[in-house]
């Protein structure tokens, strides 16, 4: 027993925190990728998350298969990201960080209203796939199977992204483009296309987290709003533009929320921001951020 709680409960709470963190990780990766490589602060990230959930429900209604929807949703949301980058964000490159920030901010409102008009105000439901329903006994208590799947699936996506960026030729170009776009261009590489792809991946991952979150919390036009704030906290704590940072910070935030909820449920929301404040005081660039990353 620690502080009135059994070790089993504390362990189970830790698992809960990791599962919560998994969604934070996915959200923050997309945000961090776009910021780190394009220097665009994407305020429409929550809206892409929401669109992902709606596309998921729509595809599920069409196919009746969660797994097919899970594969197609990020492709479609990424496709939307392509269009947004090409026609809205691209004209603003080189004009200072606040231009795309304001644009995506406005865009998020347009996206939310468009969804309200198309799908209604009251929200929809995406059922948990039958094979992932119910709880399993972990030895320390019962835990929902779907949340375990979330942890595993997030691990897979993170590994795949890491491999793509760190180990493939195209990943090398992306990284080179991030550190010195001019040289990359001089070398005869179409940097605009690289940025297009990165924006699509970032928004696609946001859409993916949307469909993954849908069975847990339902689908509503406003679901991206609180998520955006949380994703920014995770990104800031982890360090803007760092994949590893997003993973560590996402899990950390999830665990902090879970542990605070156990001892002082009222403080859970505040704890996220306290964590951010502490990290910013001790290490302003975030856990794994580069110094002066905003430049």
């Amino acid at each position: 027993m620690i502080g009135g709680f059994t070790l089993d409960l504390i362990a189970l709470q830790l698992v809960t925190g990791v599962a919560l963190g998994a969604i934070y990780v996915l959200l923050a990766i997309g945000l961090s990728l776009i910021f780190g490589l394009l220097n665009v602060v994407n305020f429409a990230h929550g809206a892409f998350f929401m669109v992902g959930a709606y596309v998921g429900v729509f595809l599920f209604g069409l196919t009746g298969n969660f797994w097919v929807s899970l594969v197609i949703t990020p492709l479609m949301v990424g496709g939307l990201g392509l269009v947004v980058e090409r026609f809205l964000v691209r004209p603003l490159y080189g004009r200072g960080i606040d231009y795309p920030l304001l644009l995506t901010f406005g865009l998020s409102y347009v996206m939310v209203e468009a969804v309200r008009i198309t799908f209604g105000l009251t929200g929809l439901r995406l059922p948990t796939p039958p094979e992932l329903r119910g709880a399993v006994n972990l030895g320390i208590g019962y835990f929902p199977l779907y949340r375990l799947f979330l942890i595993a699936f997030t691990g897979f996506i993170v590994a795949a992204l890491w491999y793509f960026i760190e180990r493939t030729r195209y990943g090398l170009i992306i990284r080179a483009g991030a550190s010195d776009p001019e040289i990359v261009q001089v070398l005869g590489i179409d940097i605009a296309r690289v940025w297009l792809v990165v924006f699509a991946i970032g928004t696609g991952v946001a859409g993916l987290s949307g469909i993954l979150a849908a069975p847990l919390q339902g689908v509503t036009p406003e679901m991206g709003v609180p998520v955006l704030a949380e994703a920014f906290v995770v990104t800031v704590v982890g360090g803007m533009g760092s994949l590893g940072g997003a993973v560590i910070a996402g899990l950390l935030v999830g665990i902090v929320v879970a542990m605070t909820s156990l001892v002082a449920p009222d403080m859970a929301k505040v704890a996220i921001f306290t964590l951010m404040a502490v990290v910013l005081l001790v290490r302003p660039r975030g856990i794994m951020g580069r110094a002066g990353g905003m430049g």
Partner: protein
Amino acid sequence: MKTHSSTTRRNVLKGSAAAGVAALVSPQLFSIARAQTAPIRIGFPVPLTGPFGAEANDQVKAAQIAVKEFNDAGGFEGRLAELMVRDDKLNPGEAATRTLELIEKDKVNFIVGSLSAAVQLSINNVSKERGVIFNSISQSDAINEAKDWSKFTFHEALNPHITAGAVGRYAFGKFGKKVAFLTADYAYGHEMVRGFQRVGKDFGIDTVADIRHPIGATDYSAFLPRIQALQPDILCLCNFGRDQVISITQATEFGLKGKTKLVAPVLLYTARQAGGDAFEGVIGGTSYYWGLESQIPSAKALNDKFRAANGGAVPSDYGALGYAGVRSILEAVKAAKSTETEKVIAGMRGLKYDWYKGPQYYRACDHQSVQSVVIVESKHKDQKDKNDVFSVVSIEAPDEAKLRSCDELGHKA
């Protein structure tokens, strides 16, 4: 042929002078003439967007039935009713602004609406200051209390004291005394917990956890392992709308139902529809369930009208309240033969009515509608169709003695 009257210059002058004088001395005459045909406007602020959106939209649909019914019957002295729906966004400030606009700009005669224990107090504040009748269709204990109440305040909905009381009386005896609470951290949740605790004293319940979550929370997983470990007999989910859907869904996923009975003070029809199978076996109170139509003729009448207007759908609990809230006012207008506030107040106080759920009346001291509480259990397998989601397990008859006394609320006898 000779014309009888010719339009002479003198006649024209005379006529127009007379008309001019009449217009100058009696502008009131014109406005009275207009008032007799002016619509009876009912302002209807509800949270169309946000976590209670599903319930609010149903309130609007049902309120429109009451308006149509009134208008189809010819209205009042030729004056038709008009519903002016506004989105209060579940925000007390927004609600106050919208209500003020409805009163000042749209010149509404009455206000009906709200769907939040907290927001209705802000609407009530504005309408009582302006001397406009407000019939609240959302649960609240505070609105009955002397410090918030005014003679313009009516409360069509149940209140947490009587709802949680009825559900507690049913559940604590049946399922056990070890009780955990998971509560939305705002007036509604707090009042429900207080209601449960008060009736719980008679049963000697043991509160093992009292956890508060922010309103509109989307993840409850962090609270659930602890509740699981405590193994309570009953988990009371004192939350509403989307919060209820998500918390019950997630509690079910955590396998809580194995050892614990899930109980909601207000088990929402709309939430059950949105949540699906996860609600199986959940017990709760409600002001209304469409299935009452098998035993109550007025319920059948409302359901039939609602079905006809909404493609076969049935009214939800809070939807039906939207209907009753508007109908009470319009019937009081007819009874009082006036739209004047004082007379309509007297009309409402005199109503003994059965709009949709059996006999009701407004208690004299606080205008609380005295009415039955229905206890329902969520079905799963034996549903006849998609509307058939609850079975009515008990009905607590209308009884003033189950309300807090006028004395306790601070009303002078």
